[in-house]
């Protein structure tokens, strides 16, 4: 359940940012969560409900951008969509793959008032 730690980090970041704007409520929060980021979304949703309770994030509309995994093959120089960390390069079958997208875990923006 590292998702709860992740949610608590999001809450910390959001509250800190809101305080800097003297905001009393967070209306919206936008997150980037990559598909290769080890976040299980069901666990995340469960943790979210608990984590935002009695904070100014409690009623915020949450928008999650799921960013697809992308790999770059060091052998054949192709870039492609990567669904699993153990997938081979679809062009040459190699495994020397650098991940170029999909690991994101980011608070992108807030709407506060």
């Amino acid at each position, binding site marked *: 359940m590292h998702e709860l730690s992740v949610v608590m980090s999001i809450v910390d970041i*959001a509250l800190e*940012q809101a305080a800097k704007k003297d905001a009393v409520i967070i209306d919206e929060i936008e997150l980037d969560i990559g598909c290769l980021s*080890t976040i299980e979304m069901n666990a995340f949703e469960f943790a979210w409900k608990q984590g935002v309770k009695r904070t100014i994030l409690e009623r915020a509309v949450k928008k999650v951008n799921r960013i697809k995994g992308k790999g770059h093959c060091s052998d054949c120089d192709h870039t492609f969509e990567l669904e699993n960390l*153990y997938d081979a390069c679809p062009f040459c079958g190699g495994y020397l793959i650098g991940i170029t997208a999909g690991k994101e875990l*980011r608070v992108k*923006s807030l*709407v506060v008032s």
Partner: protein
Amino acid sequence: MCATCGCDTGATITMHEHGHQHDHSDHHLHEHSHKKVVDVEQDILHENNLLAERNRGYFDAKNILALNLVSSPGSGKTSLLEKTLTDLKGDLNFAVIEGDQQTTNDADRIHATGTKVVQINTGKGCHLDAHMVLHAVQGMKPVQDSVLFIENVGNLVCPAMFDLGEKERVVIISVTEGDDKPLKYPDMFHSSTLCIINKTDLLPYVPFDIEKVKANAKKINPALEIIELSCTSGEGLTTWYNWLKLKAVAAMPA
């Protein structure tokens, strides 16, 4: 975060407000002048990563080789440590941080070898994070030119996400587990630098294909080093000790 360790990252956050001339297709704010869009663009693990770098800087400055040992429960992490600490007592200085949800059982076992040890109980937590390690290190004060083993909570999922400031991450798998484990828990194998396959003395009794597990691990991480060993028979331990000494020498320039 606690007030004593300076975790507040207020100074490093980049943030700016958008002016009203910007197009916010997702936010219909223009009619609500009291609402503000805050561009945060902050990594959720930023706080942990900052503390991990802080730990790393401390280890580097003191020539401490910090190793993060990760595995599922029961792979033999503590037994491997006991054996290593006993066998290499005269060669290297050691310190150990033990991570478990409850009890000081593991720390007691390490303490019995005569090694400096600190136990972290995570309570309900499923992993160690850089903040816990920071405080453990502050308490134990590991000596210069030493090897610090950080035995993480037995869990192949959550600890993968949290950098502790270690130099190397060592994933341990035992032959009583499935040989498809790297595929089931790819993140841990992806983020580790060394994989130890433990309990090889049991190979004749279990349907564990060691070549298959190695191939699976290499699919995820082609650069992963692999050492097969058994703490019971002693087979392969020399390879592990040599790896450790090599890394220790690299961390401790003369």
